[in-house]
């Protein structure tokens, strides 16, 4: 169990027990660009119209695509408090509602989870790394996410009902979404599911220009031109560009297009997990050596 700094947490009284409640996530005011369709879909899912209630949903996709950023933006749009719950393999059913931790004075205190606080206060709960949690640990969520909207806390010995305005969403990686049936009972309770994939080039360009307001726009243009054939996550793109730019500033380089490309290429080499596109030669021969002359079409010169 990770240590939690609870000194600044608010205290509430639940049936005679003092329970600390974590602070909401700080959501800074910033310009969010792109992903309009996903945000619109998420807002539709959460909306209440006539007798149609709000629905929980989940976001899935490769890492670094901005799943959390989307939820932050939703919180900004709806002007609601956001609480983030992070899943991990050691989570237990008790960890869903309330945990016990030790304060600086060595005294054990009850601490409500972000999920419980969001339920009580009518905020948004983002359950991040949802797929890392074991099935049995997720069992208490079944009642949170269906019509009863309640959670049972064994430690506190009571059942809590969610505020009418409580909203829930989960974030998980792409492969867990497709391969696993372990959490089917949760999957159905967190539908619809929205895929957050690789952004288009124009969207990526917009994001980079907003997130990294480098005075020279040519950095972004050169970046887009250089990496247009590579699938880059938003996080990787931002990190490559930032690293390259900071290095050039550090070396006080007088930049030309060629030098900018060099810095970007060097930065890219520090990200070995990103796959370069496969050349036509490699597709056929399996490597980059020249052994043959293409029979189909015109003769190719391959290097």
């Amino acid at each position: 169990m990770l240590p939690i700094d609870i000194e600044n947490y608010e205290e509430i009284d639940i049936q005679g027990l003092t329970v600390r409640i974590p602070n909401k996530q700080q959501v800074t005011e910033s310009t969010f660009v792109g992903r309009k369709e996903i945000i619109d879909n998420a807002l539709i899912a959460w909306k209440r119209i006539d007798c149609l209630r709000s629905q929980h949903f989940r976001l899935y996709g490769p890492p670094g695509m901005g799943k959390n950023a989307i939820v932050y933006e939703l919180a900004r749009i709806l002007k609601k408090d956001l609480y983030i719950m992070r899943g991990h393999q050691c989570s237990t059913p008790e960890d869903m509602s309330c945990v016990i931790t030790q304060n600086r004075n060595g005294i054990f205190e009850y601490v409500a989870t972000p999920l419980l606080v969001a339920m009580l206060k009518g905020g948004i709960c983002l359950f991040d790394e949802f797929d890392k949690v074991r099935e049995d640990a997720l069992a208490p969520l079944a009642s949170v996410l269906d019509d009863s909207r309640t959670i049972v806390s064994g430690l506190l010995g009571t059942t809590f009902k969610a505020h009418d305005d409580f909203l829930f969403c989960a974030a998980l990686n792409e492969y867990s979404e497709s391969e696993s049936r372990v959490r089917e009972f949760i999957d159905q309770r967190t539908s619809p599911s929205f895929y957050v994939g690789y952004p288009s080039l124009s969207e990526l360009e917009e994001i980079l220009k907003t997130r990294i307001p480098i005075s020279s726009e040519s950095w972004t243009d050169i970046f887009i031109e250089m990496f247009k054939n590579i699938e880059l996550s938003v996080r990787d793109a931002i990190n490559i560009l930032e690293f390259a730019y900071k290095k050039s500033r550090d070396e006080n380089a007088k930049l030309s297009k060629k030098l900018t490309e060099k810095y970007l290429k060097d930065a890219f080499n520090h990200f070995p997990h990103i796959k370069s596109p496969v050349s036509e030669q490699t597709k056929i021969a399996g490597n980059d050596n020249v052994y043959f002359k293409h029979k189909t079409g015109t003769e190719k010169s391959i290097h």
Partner: protein
Amino acid sequence: MFILNTKPVQKNQYIKCNAFENLTVVPYMRGRLVFAELAARAIEEGEFDTVVVDLPYFMNGKTWLDIPIRLFPYVSSLVLKKPDSTLINFPFVPNDAACAAVAAAKGIKDGSKSIDIQCIDDSNVIHYPPDCFYQPVIRVKDDYFVFIEGIENYYRPLFSQLDQTWQQLSTDHRFFFEYRAGIMSERIKECLRQGRNTLFVCEYRIWWLISKLLGSQQSGRVNQFYYPWKDMSAALVIGDPYLFWANGMLDDYPLIVSLFCERLHLGLMGSFDKLQTIDGIIGSMIEARAKQGLRHPSVRELILFQNYFTKRLKIKRICTPSFLSDLYESVSSCLGKGFAREMARQLLNYPYPEKDEVLGYFNIQYDNVIEGFPFGLPDLSEIACFHTGTTVYSQDQFYGNSMTSNTQMDFVSRNYPYINKKESKELGETSGMIWAVAEDYRLHETACAKVRNIVAKKRHKEVIKKSHGFSGDGIHWKATLAARAKGENAIYIRAKKEPLKGKIAVLDEYTPVVFLFSNEISKDYVQTISDFNITQRLTSLGEEILSFDTLPSPDFVYSILYTNSARQCLCKGHISKVRLSSIAFIYTRYSMGVERYTAITKKPEKFQCRSLPFNDPELKGFSHSEIGIAWAIKYAKDIVLIVAGDGWKASTQLDSFARAKSVSINYISLSNFSEDFIERLRTLHFISTFLKKYSNCDKILRRFLEL
């Protein structure tokens, strides 16, 4: 009922012209099925002597119009070559109200009653100056509202928009618009003077101006201008329905247009409704899957879907869901990608022509069409449309529908397996070696990695024990509080139980994994997949090798063994799809080709398979259901992972063989994987050598692969 429309609908909608009591009008939006339905209904149910449509006057010639109309549901284009050699495209689609009206009238004409058909648009429209075709973009509501609000109420705000934009048009534009409307209104009056009960089917922008001219008895500049006609060459070309759909010419759902066409031919418009038909198709799909015992949406999923889908439609204030952004997106989000893809395939289904591309060359005269001479035709998507003067088919912008033609074409490619005519011509022979597909291998790697993960987790069981200062994997509060309650001053923690050292088998990409999907394998085929070195690979691909000096001798190893009962051929035999009953891997990374061969041959030779399993004397005696496992045991180091249905147990023969090889067998249940994932895993694809080397291979594969 998924597409809920609780408002009452009134199907018979048309406008009675105040100026002429024997004139009934159905104004339409170009290419919109709802109006085609209105026009067809009016003809079926009304007692009309004449049907007047806003098709060009030259189409009146004898029976020329029969050719494209009788082709329906096949779509076609009349490609007109102007004297200055520019080309104009006039599409014929059954969802266009004018075309549908002609088809309905011809249907009745062929029966007992005679209905006269008149095309009254100015033939010279094609020669008008290009600037005069500019049409203001009109924001329009979902066309289904015409049944709910009534046709006059539906068009009222649109006519107001036209009133407002009229003065913004250039003088020339207004001139030609009035001129054209004037010609058409004179021709209508001519029909009406004969006292015939007339139905006029006309695009709503033109009707807006014609109604003013009819009402005011003006002639609309007809006498102010004379434009000499110039004969033109033309070709009637059969069209690609998916290109038509991507360009907004085939309404929202190709299948619905095809079903509409069937009703049109049978004269059964009375029972047709676009939304109910879409709804019925989704419902039938779910029923069919349930009857076949396939996984189908649960009641909870259907309720979730309906909830989300209905909210979408209500927020956007539409009755007709957009195919991609509403229906497909909602089904994919709530009912799964597999179901969404199957639904998309059904709704995209449209008759695809096998015939020659050009049906005939013609010479277009002012009021007639006669046979003509051939001329060169470019890609039709680059030709301007007759009615807008641009490559855009219609300037009516529907709320909430912002899909571009590229997006729609990409959607077809991803969901509907077909090859276009160009690809069909270019794809050559299917003989020769067949090749595995990268997407399948990526899936195999994911599945095998998950299997290893499950086995690894099982090895480390969690125990609860008293802490002696160590925090382990966290305090177990229940045990701690229970201990305190008993008076024991102790903290209990969670810890992993480590298995005894020296007995742990390494789990990596060389750990064989076997999936058994079915118990009925005894009569299935046993097949293998091999990985070549560079020389063998180039030879198999049919490449001309420049020099053998630098190359090793040809060699290959087997890394996958599978059993299957059936093989399906797709894409003219260039893609085959195999449904597996089992599959065994002795190397589980997704790399292919020479890279895969290199990785396998790094290991000692005893772990490399170079002989066919059914020829291997060591593996003789094993049944088809066990040969994959036996083969994996033979080439394993110390452990084999088996994924099978609940209750699977190794036979005595397998156990003995494994013991003799000092290999342990670890079993995991198939229920650890979702049914969709298993379905995908037990599908293997192969492509021909020709397709492998074809430039558009990836695009074609995406249409046919179950991703």
